[in-house]
């Protein structure tokens, strides 16, 4: 028996897994502490395996506290919780009494310079967060990648130093969500695993590897299987689990479309053996969701997970070998560059071994181009200098074509005609009529 409350995000997920449950978690953040508290409390009280989220606002992410204060003084709403300026006492108050061995809170931000954020959260007794030296830099900033690597090294060491009998700091990589959309799975998997290895090299003993749902159900299922296989190989000596994100790109505009896409994500979580599912709401395409929209979506997700588990659909993972092979190739090509994983990551960017399509960051090589193929899978038109099979070569892209690719998933689930078929069976997913 322990007297102190355990701080062990990974442990909660492990125990849920042992009960056969997948943990569901919102992306939630409000500037008003009272609202933030009521959101966390509402999520904790749900009759489902949940994790709580504090999403940090964009000013805090960039360390622009002057802009933050003047916005709050002017009575503006921020797009998240101002964790650093809120102060330790406020953050302790809004999280007080919520964490136990079935519920933990994670801080989510998107900062390539996260030391202020991580100091503020650990001061307030929180030790689970998210990020990574590339995944919180390339899609989120213009900071040189080498600086982000250095910041994240110090962050990992700060977190790791908290390790103790009642405290197991946890860090999730955002590598599986780069740019939110249109990134072929082998690159997402590679960055997830590489950042997991980076976290371990700097002392973390509990991590999670992310992957986001993309354009093609079978391709995503293969990707999750590959991610799990590689995590087992590269991170065998530490605690790890897999977190699946509901689609991180342009979301369906209609409530029904959003509902169908979320149901498909739950099915993917079950079939791909994810341990945790990040849930989006029907408001995603339009604005930041309310507490009620979040709790409704979480309960829906819990139902969807149960329904999918009780109704397995046949599927084959024919493409697993390719994605596993390609992800491993990217990981190995990177790791060969240096024993210091951080140096290997920046070296891989310089050489173009890692190249994120459509990413405008100055340190991204910017030669790789991805596209949705005729079957709805994400593929490479051009791999740049990445050690993968070359694609057919980049084609000129018009603004209309770009929007069509970005809207491919949304249109499909909204019931509009996509450019190419997107194989899935939403109508088989539950007892409810969804078509």
């Amino acid at each position, binding site marked *: 028996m322990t007297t102190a409350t355990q701080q062990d995000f990974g442990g909660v997920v492990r125990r849920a897994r042992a009960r056969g449950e997948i943990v569901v978690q919102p992306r939630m953040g409000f500037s008003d502490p009272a609202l933030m508290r009521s959101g966390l409390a509402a999520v904790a009280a749900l009759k489902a395996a949940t994790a709580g989220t504090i999403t940090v606002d964009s000013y805090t992410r*960039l360390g622009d506290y002057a802009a933050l204060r003047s916005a709050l003084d002017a009575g503006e*709403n*921020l*797009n998240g919780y101002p964790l650093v300026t809120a102060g330790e006492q406020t953050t302790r108050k809004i999280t007080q009494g919520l964490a136990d061995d079935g519920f933990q809170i994670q801080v989510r931000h998107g900062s390539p310079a996260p030391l202020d954020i991580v100091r503020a959260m650990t001061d307030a007794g929180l030790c689970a967060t998210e990020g990574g030296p590339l995944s919180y830099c390339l899609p989120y900033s*213009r900071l040189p990648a080498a600086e982000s690597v250095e910041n994240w090294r110090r962050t990992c060491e700060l977190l790791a130093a908290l390790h103790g009998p009642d405290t197991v700091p946890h860090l999730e990589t955002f590598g599986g969500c780069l740019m939110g959309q249109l990134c072929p799975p082998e690159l997402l998997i590679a960055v997830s695993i590489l950042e997991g290895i980076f976290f371990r090299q700097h002392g973390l003993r509990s991590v999670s590897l992310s992957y986001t749902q993309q354009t093609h159900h079978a391709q995503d299922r293969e990707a999750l299987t590959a991610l799990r296989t590689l995590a087992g190989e590269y991170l065998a000596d530490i605690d790890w689990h897999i977190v699946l994100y509901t689609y991180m790109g342009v979301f369906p505009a209609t409530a029904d479309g959003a509902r169908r896409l979320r149901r498909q994500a739950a099915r993917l979580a079950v079939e791909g053996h994810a341990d945790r599912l990040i849930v989006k709401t029907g408001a995603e395409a339009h*604005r930041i969701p309310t507490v009620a929209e979040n709790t409704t979506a979480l309960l829906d997700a819990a139902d969807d997970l149960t329904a999918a588990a009780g109704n397995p659909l046949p599927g084959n993972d024919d493409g697993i070998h390719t994605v596993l092979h390609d992800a491993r190739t990217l990981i190995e090509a990177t790791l060969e560059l240096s024993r210091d994983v951080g140096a290997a990551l920046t070296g891989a960017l310089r050489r173009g071994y890692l190249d994120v399509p*459509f990413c*405008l960051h100055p340190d991204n090589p910017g030669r790789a181009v991805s596209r949705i193929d005729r079957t709805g899978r994400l593929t490479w038109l051009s791999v740049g200098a990445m050690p993968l099979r070359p694609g057919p070569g980049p084609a000129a892209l018009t603004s209309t074509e770009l*929007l069509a690719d970005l809207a491919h998933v949304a249109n499909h689930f909204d019931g509009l005609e996509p450019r190419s078929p997107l194989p899935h069976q939403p109508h088989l997913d539950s007892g409810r009529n969804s078509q």
Partner: protein
Amino acid sequence: MPRTISPTAVVSTVSSDAHTWNLIFLELLLTETGYRVHNVGACVPDELLIETCRTRNPHLLVLSSVNGHGAIDAERLIKRLRTVPELAALPTAVGGKLGTDGESGLSTRRRRLTRAGFTAVFEGAAAVARFQTFARGVRDSVQGSQP
């Protein structure tokens, strides 16, 4: 046949905003409209954007933000930019999802941002179509005014 000069545009977002798909879209759209485009990318500090406009001296500045802080950041930026004499008359457009309250704050934001110094504000359903008309107008006046 008279030689036509290509109009130039700077596409950017505001200091707190990391979203870039919107910027890539606008870059393509403006290129198709006949502009030569410089895309500044994510999280652009006010100083960098003002400096970029001074050195590149574009015919049009297009600002996009979708993270919910757009109106706050764009208002601060445009007030600073308008104090620079050579940028006082630069045509400037701003658009996207500019507040955290969705469509409901739309008309307030438009008033606030035009008062602060933007030439035009584009939010809501017909934003892209209205913007195309605006961008063609700027292009045509650039090309019409050449010797």
